[in-house]
């Protein structure tokens, strides 16, 4: 990354990354509680526990690089710097939603921050990511696209076609599989004929099998960073499998009771925030300061939520905008 952007980059330091993970964690916890209060219309899939992947990856991207993800995409939008208020407004169906109330929780998008959207058909956005990277290659812009998807997505055709074409055309795209161990209710291990959902497939595309501890933000930063720079150099795509775990159910409506208690415990012990906190303290940061930073974040998020909730609904007339480039939706005269 050019030094210039580094200075401005809030994710440039371990502390900054910890802070960003905290922001995401507290934001998602707030969404979870708002959901329980019936204030979120429609499903909400939270990335609780997977913050290190979003932040570690975002930390190696240039402002003009691209990322794209799934319905579990809030963390990725926030990691790129998307507006918390606009995202909350979208989730709460208030005016000023980041998708104008037309996307909801599953389609959070912030093109302004290089996050090209959250897609809710499993696998569908991998071919789209390929196209984004294809454009960068055609124009030789040096931009890289990072595409996040789940472990369950490796079994769908679009995954195969996308990774295969990216490899064939040697495109600057880094595929990051967030292996949180589950589809909706089924453990991924029961749904693949190989050991690992993504890494075990890499050789089928002439790619190296890459596995990283997805709950270690610094490890993610290093591994994704290397892949991004390789892609930028023109060395083609990478397929990275990041091991992680979702702290809650598949969506806010799911208690996740199908998960063995000891398994949950094991993973709780590997919480990316606890680990980064410990690392920072070891590096000499004052723990109490870190705690009060967390407190400040909690307070700001809930204050933000109150303000957004106080807002009004979107103008019903806007339902007819944004279908066509002319801004409207007229299909006949």
């Amino acid at each position, binding site marked *: 990354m050019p030094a210039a952007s580094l200075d401005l980059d809030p994710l440039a330091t371990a502390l900054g990354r910890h802070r960003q993970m905290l922001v995401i964690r507290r934001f998602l916890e707030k969404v979870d509680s708002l959901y329980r209060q019936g204030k979120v*219309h*429609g*499903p909400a899939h939270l990335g609780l526990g997977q913050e290190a992947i979003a932040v570690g990856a975002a930390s190696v991207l240039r402002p003009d690089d691209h990322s794209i993800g799934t319905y579990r995409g809030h963390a990725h939008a926030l990691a790129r710097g998307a507006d918390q208020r606009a995202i909350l407004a*979208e989730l709460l*169906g*208030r005016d000023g*939603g980041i*998708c104008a*109330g*037309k*996307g*909801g*929780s*599953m*389609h959070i998008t912030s093109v302004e921050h290089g996050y090209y959207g959250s*897609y*809710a*058909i*499993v*696998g*569908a956005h991998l071919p789209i990511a390929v196209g984004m990277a294809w454009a960068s290659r055609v124009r030789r812009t040096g931009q890289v696209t990072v595409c996040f998807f789940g472990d*369950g*997505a490796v*079994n*769908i*055709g*679009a995954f195969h076609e996308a990774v295969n074409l990216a490899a064939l055309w040697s495109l600057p795209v880094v595929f990051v599989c967030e292996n949180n161990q589950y*589809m*909706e*209710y*089924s453990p991924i291990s*029961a*749904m*693949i004929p190989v050991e690992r959902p993504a890494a075990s497939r890499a050789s089928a595309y002439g790619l190296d099998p890459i596995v990283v501890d997805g709950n270690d933000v610094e490890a993610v930063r290093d591994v994704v960073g290397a892949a991004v720079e390789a892609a930028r150099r023109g060395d083609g795509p990478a397929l990275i499998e990041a091991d992680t775990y979702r702290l809650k159910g598949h969506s806010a409506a799911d208690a996740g009771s*199908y998960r063995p208690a000891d398994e949950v415990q094991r993973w709780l012990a590997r919480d990316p925030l606890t680990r980064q906190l410990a690392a920072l303290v070891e590096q000499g940061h004052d723990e109490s300061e870190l705690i009060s930073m967390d407190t400040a974040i909690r307070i700001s998020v809930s204050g933000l939520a109150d303000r957004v909730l106080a807002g009004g*609904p*979107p103008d*019903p007339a*806007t*339902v*007819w905008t944004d*279908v066509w480039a002319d801004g409207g*939706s007229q*299909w006949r005269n």
Partner: protein
Amino acid sequence: MAELTFRSAVQATLAQEMARDERVTLLGEDITSGGVFKTTTGLLDRFGPDRVWDTPISEQAIVGAAMGAAMMGLRPVAEIMFADFYAVCWDLVVNEIAKTRYMTGGQVSLPLVLRGASGFGSLGFGSQHGQSVENWAMCVPGLKIVSPSTPAEMAGLLAAAIRCDDPVLVFEHKALYGAKQDVGDGEHLLPLGQARVVREGSDVTLVGLSITVRYCEQAALRLAEEGISAEVLDLRSLVPLDARAVLDSVGRTGRLVIVEENPGQLGWGAAIAAIAAEEAFDDLIAPVTRVSGGNVPWPVARELEAVVDVSPEQVVSAVRALTKRATSGARKGDRHADQR
């Protein structure tokens, strides 16, 4: 079955048919644990792993597996979690399943059911999880299309679909899953291709499918208060289509309002309207009217959903417009004059 919800009608009917015919075998994502909409609860425990199969997220493989197994004589019932996902396996549905009996000159039979949640209902599922896609399937000959409107209808039509020797797509409107009804005891079985007269009337025919049948009923009640007598038809299936029922009703009422949840750009309602415009021309005393979903991808914010979703209110005002309309000069004005 006694009192059932739409959801439990699915589960109970699957159980009934699995008990009745050991060839009935289920596959789908997360179905052994009951499925996302809890329509397959308990079936693994009762029928064992040879009858209920969890699959990876591989809709092409799911639908293809159903097709191949059906060719071998099993009677697979595959769950497609949300009807929107038919798009990822559309080739298997419309180019393989719909055509293989025909293109082999009748050498194979495909007794299979594809079923799952569908529809909008302003539940906040948005554009990729909220579509009603019965119209997609109706574009392609070779598929039977069922979309029930009540728990009893679900039980009777799903049983019929599973016993049918042809491929049947069963659409379960997700906003209806919670609907309760006393369906009485014993086996439910309804014929495919026979519309249901939900309510008789003489001034206008309201045609609905799935959730819109409710909207038609609610509209009919309000219209009755205004002295307008509306007949309500539940099509039940689009293929086979009981066009006669629609034409006969229009023969009596002279007016037709079709209520469809899908966008009106090209919905199943257009097929009904076109048939009426051609075959009921002399009976119609007013324009054929469609009340359809808005022609945009579905939004999520409640206030936006309300604009594009169809509603009883829209049906009521559509009918008012037709009945207010001067029928003088209309071919059948006289015959119907007394009724206004």
